[in-house]
């Protein structure tokens, strides 16, 4: 190999064009070959492709940054009339009256927060419990098909969930579940009668929708825990459940929190299923069985038909709020997941 005749050329070339120059020594001549690689004319002639390719890919990668920035800026611009016109009142009042040009977003923010909170309360124990089942208890033959089902559950379009929600879930809940909640628990959270199109129904359907997100991430975190940790706990005489708590769940707590927050982020921004099942009436009420409204659902319902500029701006401001919250939650979640799994990986290597 001509590569090895020159002692200054490393055996593995970091830049491909240098190797090419060496393969064709007749082009560069004997004298030139003894100089440093940088001064070879053939290398300079050949290497234009790399910088061009590199800058093209760099531009496209940078486009992602520009895109994210542009979304934030344009949303701010769109929302500006409302931010200026309504000020902090936007977050304090719940009167939403397009005819009178008065916009208060409180009831929508309330609906979004409460429905996501319900989803969070239901999905957290389920998500962790099922991940424990899948990684620690289920026979190996079952793991593959179940994880495939979870994948499908995550990929089903939200409008399909919504359709199922209106025609199957809401009637079922209003006939077989809500009457009992009203009778047994009652005021102030469960006041009937309910049609099924309610805040609680929205929370339940959101829980089903965010479960796959929580499960797939917590499963990954659990799988990153070394086998030896479990064996150690078992050897010390712990029962299987104690082993799960001590060796599996507690070291992965930050990762689990990240998984739950990613799920929460998804719940906050979920639009179609919620729009179809929440009942679409702006109201701040403790009654979970009454119709409500969320940020995403009011945007979905009113944006295309908004008449005045102020109305559009108010809806955009709600969108801006939604984006702000989800971005913050996502950043926190990614940092948590990333720090746990890298810590666990370091543990495994040690």
């Amino acid at each position, binding site marked *: 190999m001509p*590569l090895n005749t020159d002692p200054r050329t490393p055996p593995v*070339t970091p830049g*491909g064009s240098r*190797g090419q120059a060496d393969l064709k020594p007749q082009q560069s001549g004997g004298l030139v070959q003894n100089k440093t690689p940088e001064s070879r004319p053939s290398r300079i002639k050949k290497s234009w*492709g*790399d910088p*061009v*390719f*590199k800058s093209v*890919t760099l531009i*496209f*990668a940078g*486009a*992602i*940054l520009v*895109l*994210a920035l*542009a*979304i934030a800026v*344009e*949303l701010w611009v769109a929302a500006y009339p409302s931010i200026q016109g309504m000020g902090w009142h936007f977050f304090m009042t719940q009167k939403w009256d397009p005819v009178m040009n008065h916009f208060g977003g409180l009831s929508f923010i309330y609906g979004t927060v409460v429905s996501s909170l319900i989803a969070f309360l239901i999905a957290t124990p389920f998500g962790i*419990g*099922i991940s*424990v*089942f899948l990684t620690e*208890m*289920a026979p190996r033959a079952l793991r593959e098909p179940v994880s495939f*089902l979870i*994948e*499908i559950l995550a*990929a*089903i*379009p*939200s*409008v*399909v*969930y*919504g*359709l*199922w929600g209106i025609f*199957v879930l809401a009637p079922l809940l209003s006939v077989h579940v809500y009457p009992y909640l009203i009778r047994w628990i009652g005021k102030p959270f469960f006041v009937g009668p309910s049609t099924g199109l309610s805040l609680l129904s929205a929370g339940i359907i959101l829980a*089903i929708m965010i*479960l796959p997100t929580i499960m797939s991430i917590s499963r990954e975190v659990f799988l990153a825990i070394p086998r030896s940790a479990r064996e150690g706990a078992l050897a010390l005489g712990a*029962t299987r459940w104690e082993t*799960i708590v001590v060796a599996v769940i507690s070291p992965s707590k930050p990762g689990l929190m990240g998984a739950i927050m*990613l799920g929460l*982020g998804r719940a*906050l*921004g*979920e*639009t179609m299923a919620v729009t*179809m099942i929440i009942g679409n009436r702006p109201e701040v009420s403790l009654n979970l069985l009454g119709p409500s409204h969320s940020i995403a659902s009011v*945007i*979905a319902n009113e*944006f295309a038909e908004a008449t005045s500029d102020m109305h559009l701006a108010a*809806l955009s401001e709600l*969108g801006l709020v939604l984006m702000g919250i989800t*971005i913050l939650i*996502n*950043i926190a979640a990614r940092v948590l997941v990333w720090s746990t799994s890298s810590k666990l990986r370091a543990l495994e290597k040690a």
Partner: protein
Amino acid sequence: MKSLNYGRRKAVDRTMRFICLLMALCIMVPLFSLMIYVTVRGLKRFDLDFFTHLPAPVGEPGGGMANAIVGTLTMILIASCVSLPISILGGVYLAEAGKTRFASLVRFTADVLSGVPSIVVGIFIYQVLVKPMHQFSALAGGLALAILMVPLVTRTTEELIKLVPRNMMEGSLALGAPRWKTTLFVVLQAARAGIATGVLLAIARIAGETAPLLFTSLNNQFWPSQINEPTASLTVQVFTFAISPFQDWQDQAWTGALVLLLLVVGVSLLSRLTLKGGRGLAN
């Protein structure tokens, strides 16, 4: 004392493990309920008319969602044309740049961007495209979908390029190919099947998006003829028909849902098979 304690611990162990099993069984209930309902009620109108006819006016029997299917395909095409070059080359950049500060920032931004609610993307496109053009259009809908597709495909491309064995790249470089040729014709070729699968998964996901289309492409009862006019899409049509009070329209909404479900399940199955095959080759 000790033995008493042991009995309690054992009971806790049994109960908690039983609860975990119960939870796993519970989640299967909504999943199967949804699939069975969509299949059974969707099959009622799963006929030729559905795929070849325009929506019928209220009260008239028949009619279908052919225009919506064409509209969805158009918007997917627009989204792919715009987003694939950006995201594949962006992914190449991320894979090659490794852990530089800029690459980490882009990676992080892509992850955060994929968490931004799709309806927010709809507002963005409305602001920059629909408002200046004074027109809802397939173009706007397609671009909104493109934005949703970019972070997904970028990250998949990066991950799959990283899976390509390093010695393949080194072999190409050693034979004298410049770096850009190595990347384009050796590394990307090797990761081709995986990237195609990732793209397919992303397409299945954006095909099911409704929220960003509600006020970018809007809806239309007729065949699409130009990309700068309001265009129907399968998902928006399902939504419109689902909340309508008419039995016939609701039936068609279920059929539309069935088509979407088949798409999702089909693509997931396909990707499982391809990725398994690809991994076998890499080893």
